[in-house]
């Protein structure tokens, strides 16, 4: 009888599976990822490597010595040990973060604009006291510009009514506000000493949300060519809430990481973060095989470093507030050893 190992589903729960069952999950995950993103499945030797990683009974799993990658964070700190600057020290000195991120709990550039001087002061203090690079992060968060939270008609209400042209016009108007706010905050943060900006979950409200981020990045980089820009996706492909928007002549709706990374680099992004959602009813192994299949062509062809979004609910990491270290370690190991990611 084949031995079984303790592993996890992507909701975080423990299950026991045999290596054969894990191998079957890996094959199914890569086949589905390949079909969905229209990319090749993982090679047999890559599935073999994943099988070894996920069939281990060890508590922890890690890359070979010398094959370490860079760890960036969309928000550093949990606000449970003093000030935000204290948390940044902790992430720098004790939790292994290589790129730190100052953030506010209202993680939206529109919200940050109203408290910018306060945030700038924290950035300035932090920069005097930290060695590791420190960026400022928030979301483009285009939905905030629609009524009742913002000044623009609500396209989520217009679309079900079939008022397509009005919905598109509303998104285009919101985009102008968002670009202005993101550039405004970026200028303030650069003045305060930030090493870079993070436009996290870009595209969360669809293609207009993403286009606003790309346009803001292009404008910021034209004025500050040395500033770092990290752009993270919101899901595995770009949602077409507008459907007709283009950047540099490319339609954004429906783009997968492989195509988007090229546009991001053209805009001036220096670190790109693809995001692949997890299926919580499947094993972590299944989810990692699927995620790696989708991002592998992006990593292979990217002109800039690719940091996979590997946190709760994305990139194969279980969807739970306290992702178990055994699962996170296996995901991280797989992302570098098999996926050749530049960072997480």
């Amino acid at each position, binding site marked *: 009888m084949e031995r079984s190992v303790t592993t996890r589903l992507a909701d975080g729960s423990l299950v026991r599976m045999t290596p054969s069952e894990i191998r079957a999950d890996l094959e199914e995950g890569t086949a589905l990822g390949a079909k969905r993103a229209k990319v090749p499945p993982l090679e047999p030797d890559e599935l073999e490597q994943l099988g070894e990683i996920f069939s281990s009974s060890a508590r922890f799993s890690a890359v070979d010595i010398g094959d370490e990658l860079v760890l960036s964070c969309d928000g550093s700190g949990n606000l449970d040990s003093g000030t935000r600057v204290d948390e940044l020290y902790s992430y720098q000195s004790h939790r292994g973060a*290589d790129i730190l991120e100052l953030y506010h709990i209202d993680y939206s550039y529109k919200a940050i604009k109203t408290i910018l001087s306060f945030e700038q002061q924290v950035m300035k203090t932090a920069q005097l006291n930290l060695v590791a690079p420190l960026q400022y992060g928030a979301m483009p968060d285009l939905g905030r510009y629609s009524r009742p939270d913002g000044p623009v008609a609500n396209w989520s209400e217009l679309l079900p009514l079939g008022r397509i042209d009005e919905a598109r016009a509303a998104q285009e108007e919101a985009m102008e506000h968002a670009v202005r706010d993101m550039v405004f905050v970026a200028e303030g943060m650069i003045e305060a000493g930030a090493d*870079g900006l993070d436009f996290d979950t870009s595209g969360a409200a669809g293609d207009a949300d993403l286009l606003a981020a790309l346009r803001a990045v292009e404008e910021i980089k034209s004025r500050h060519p040395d500033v770092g820009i990290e752009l993270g996706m919101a899901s595995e492909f770009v949602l077409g809430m507008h459907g007709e928007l283009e950047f540099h002549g490319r339609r954004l709706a429906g783009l997968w990481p492989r195509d988007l990374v090229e546009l991001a680099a053209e805009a001036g992004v220096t670190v790109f973060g693809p995001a692949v959602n997890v299926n919580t009813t499947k094993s972590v192994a299944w989810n990692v095989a699927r995620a790696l299949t989708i991002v592998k062509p992006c990593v292979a062809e990217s002109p800039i470093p690719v940091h996979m979004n590997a946190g709760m609910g994305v990139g194969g990491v279980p969807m739970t507030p306290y992702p178990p270290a055994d699962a996170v370690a296996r995901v991280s190991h797989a992302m570098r050893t098999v996926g050749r990611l*530049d960072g997480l």
Partner: protein
Amino acid sequence: MRAAGDLVARMQMTRGMRLDDAKAHVAERLGVSTDDLSDPLVMHDVRRELGLGLIPVQELTYPGEPGAIEAKFHIAEVLDVPINCVEKFREHVGRPATRSTGAFAPKAEVPA
């Protein structure tokens, strides 16, 4: 920062370098091998020698070594990469201090 992750990260972030290129650049500038970059023992000595910042712990404090912002001046020079807050610091320190007001400003003569 226990080793050289922050330095490699800075090249990714500022120059958009892929991981292997960023590691090669940092290793070449520090005069070590890429394998040394993740070794905390080697990197402690290198960081100390070049003034690139160290993590003070209970038994090891470094009051005589460059602190955070000071270390970033050295990082910018060693890696040959601009660091925004270093440039801002330099700009602010270089501002002329006219001392025309305040407690130590020359007092106007009071007529007898």
